[in-house]
C-alpha cells in the first residue's frame, strides 16, 4: 500500500501498534497481579508486594501442580522429540511407499479438535481398563506433540546440504560417525526448537489433560478448578516466571541470529 498518502500511510502502523497492545494486555495483567498483596482471591488490586515471588511454595497446591506439569512436560518432550525427529529424517531423505498416508496420519492429529482427542483417548483407556494418572497424561501429551516436532525438524532437515554428509563418507566415516558427527549437530537447532515447542504445548495443555488426568492435578488443571473460587497470586508468579524465561530464550536466539547474519553480510 505504498501508493497511499496521509491517512493511509499512518493507518497501518497505528493499527498494528494497537493490535500488539491488545495481544499483550492479558500478559501485563497476569504479571502485574503476581505482585498483588492479595489474601485469598486475586481479583482486586490491594497493593504491591514481593511476598508472592519469594514465597511461591507457600501455596503448596500450586507448587505441587507446577512440579507435576514440569515432570510430564520433560518426559513427553523427550519421547515426542525422538519419535518425531526420526519421522522427519525419513520423510525428507527416504523414498518409501505409503508416503501420502503417512503425511495424512501426521496431519490429522493437528486438524482434530482437542476435545475429540481427549475424549477419544479417555474412551479408549476406559475400554482397556487403564487407570488414569500421570502415565495416561504423558501418553496423551506425546501423541499430540509428535506431529508438531515432525513439522519443525523436517524444515531443518530439508535445509541441510546432503553434500556435507557425502564429504564425511568420502573421508571414510562410517554411517554412525556421519550421523553423530555431521547430521545430528547440524540438525540440533531444529531439534531444540521442536523440543521447546513440544514442552510449551505439553506444559500449557488443559483440554486433553482434563479428560485423562484422573485424580492428578497439573498446573492448568489446578487453575481451571480454582477459577471458581479465585486463583492464588502464586499461580500468576509461576506463569510470569515461565513467560519471562521463554521470552529471554526467544530473544537470545533471535539476537544471535541477527548478529550472525550481519557478520555474514560484512564478509
Amino acid at each position, binding site marked *: 500500500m505504498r501508493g497511499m498518502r496521509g491517512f493511509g500511510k499512518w493507518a497501518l502502523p497505528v493499527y498494528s501498534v494497537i493490535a500488539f497492545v491488545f*495481544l499483550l494486555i492479558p500478559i501485563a495483567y*497476569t504479571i502485574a497481579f503476581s505482585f498483588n498483596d492479595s489474601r485469598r482471591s486475586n481479583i*482486586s488490586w490491594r497493593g504491591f508486594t514481593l511476598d508472592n515471588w519469594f514465597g511461591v511454595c507457600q501455596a503448596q497446591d500450586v507448587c505441587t501442580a507446577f512440579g507435576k506439569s514440569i515432570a510430564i512436560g520433560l518426559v513427553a518432550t523427550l519421547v515426542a522429540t525422538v519419535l518425531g525427529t526420526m519421522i522427519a529424517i525419513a520423510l525428507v531423505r527416504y523414498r518409501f511407499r505409503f508416503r501420502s498416508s503417512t503425511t495424512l496420519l*501426521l496431519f490429522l492429529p493437528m*486438524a482434530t479438535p482437542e476435545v475429540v482427542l481427549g*475424549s*477419544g483417548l479417555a474412551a*479408549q483407556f476406559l475400554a482397556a481398563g487403564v487407570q488414569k494418572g500421570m502415565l495416561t497424561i504423558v501418553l496423551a501429551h506425546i501423541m499430540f506433540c509428535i506431529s508438531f516436532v515432525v513439522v*519443525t525438524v523436517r524444515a531443518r532437515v530439508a535445509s541441510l546440504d546432503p553434500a556435507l554428509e557425502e564429504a564425511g563418507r568420502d573421508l571414510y566415516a562410517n554411517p554412525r560417525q556421519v550421523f553423530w558427527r555431521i547430521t545430528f549437530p547440524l540438525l540440533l537447532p531444529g531439534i531444540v526448537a521442536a523440543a521447546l515447542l513440544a514442552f510449551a504445548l505439553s506444559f500449557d495443555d488443559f483440554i486433553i489433560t482434563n479428560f485423562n488426568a484422573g485424580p492428578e492435578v497439573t498446573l492448568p488443571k489446578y487453575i481451571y478448578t480454582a477459577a471458581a473460587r479465585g486463583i492464588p497470586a502464586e499461580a500468576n508468579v509461576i506463569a510470569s516466571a515461565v513467560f519471562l524465561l521463554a*521470552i529471554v530464550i526467544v530473544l537470545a536466539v533471535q539476537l544471535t541470529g541477527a548478529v550472525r547474519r550481519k557478520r555474514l553480510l560484512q564478509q
Partner: protein
Amino acid sequence: MAFTAFASDTALAPQQEPTKRGRVALLLLLPGLAYLAVFFLAPLISLILTSLQRPAEFGDFGQYEYAFNVDNYADVFGAYGGHIVRSIAYSSAATVAALLLGYPLAYFIAVTLRRWPVWQGLALTLVIAPFFISFLLRTLAWKQILSDEGPVLGFLQLVQVLPDGARLTGTDFSVIFGLTYNFLPFMVLPIYASLASLDLRLLEASRDLYANAWSSFWRVTVPLSLPGIISGSLLVLIPAAGDYVNASLDFLGGTGTAMVGNVIETLFIETGNYPEASALSVILMALILVPVAFYVLFTRTEDLI
C-alpha cells in the same frame, strides 16, 4: 498446513528429492507411526464404538455395553442441537473476526517491516508471546478486565455506548471475543508466512498498469496470500469449535453460552454418560472434517504438514 510458520528455516530450504531407499526408512517411521496408530487412530474408533453403547441390561446404573444403539445420536441432536449450532456460530464468528483483525497485522509485519529484519523478528515474537503464558490465566485476565466492575464496561457506559445494567462477560460477545483473542496468533502466522514471500514488484507492475491501491490489493495481494488465509482460518476454526474454556461459566461464558465442548466435558467427566459424550465428539469431528477434507483435496499431500 502452514504449521511450518513455527519453523524458521522453511524459506531457506532448497527443494530436494528424497533419494535413499531401504529398511532404515521403516525403522525410522515405525515407532512414531505405530504410536499415532495406537494413541490417535484407535481412540477415534473407540469413540465411535462408545457412542453406540447402550445401558447395560444387568449392570449397575452408569454401566454400558457395546451395541449398535444409533438412538444416542438422535438423543444428543434433540437435547444439544442448540449447543452444536452455537459452536458453529461462535467458531465461525471468531474466525472471521481473527481474519479481519489479523490480516492487517500480518501485512504490516511481512511487508512494511520487511526492510528492518530485527524489528520484524521482534514483532513476530510479540505475536507469539501470548503462547508463553498460561492460556487459562490469559482468559481469566480478560474476564476481570471485561467484568462488571472492570474498566472497559465502566468506560462504555460513561460514553453511553452501553446502557446501565448492560454486561460484557457471560455474553455471546465475550465468548467470541475470548476465542478470537486466544487463537488470533494462529491466523497471523500463516498469513505472515505467505505475505513474506510476496514479490513487491508485482504490486509495482499492477500500479504501472493503472490499478489503484484498492484493486491491486484485491487482485494481487489477496490472491497471493490465499494459502495463508485458508490455513489461518482452519487453525482458528478447529480449536475454537472444540473449545470449552472460554464459554465456561468460570471464564468468559454465561448460562446461555455453553458450546459442544462444555457438554462433552460435563457428560464425560462429571456425569459419566460416556455414550452421549462420545456421540457428540463424533458429531463435532464429522463437522470439522468437512472443511478439513476440502483443504486436503485441494492441497498437495507433501504440503499438508
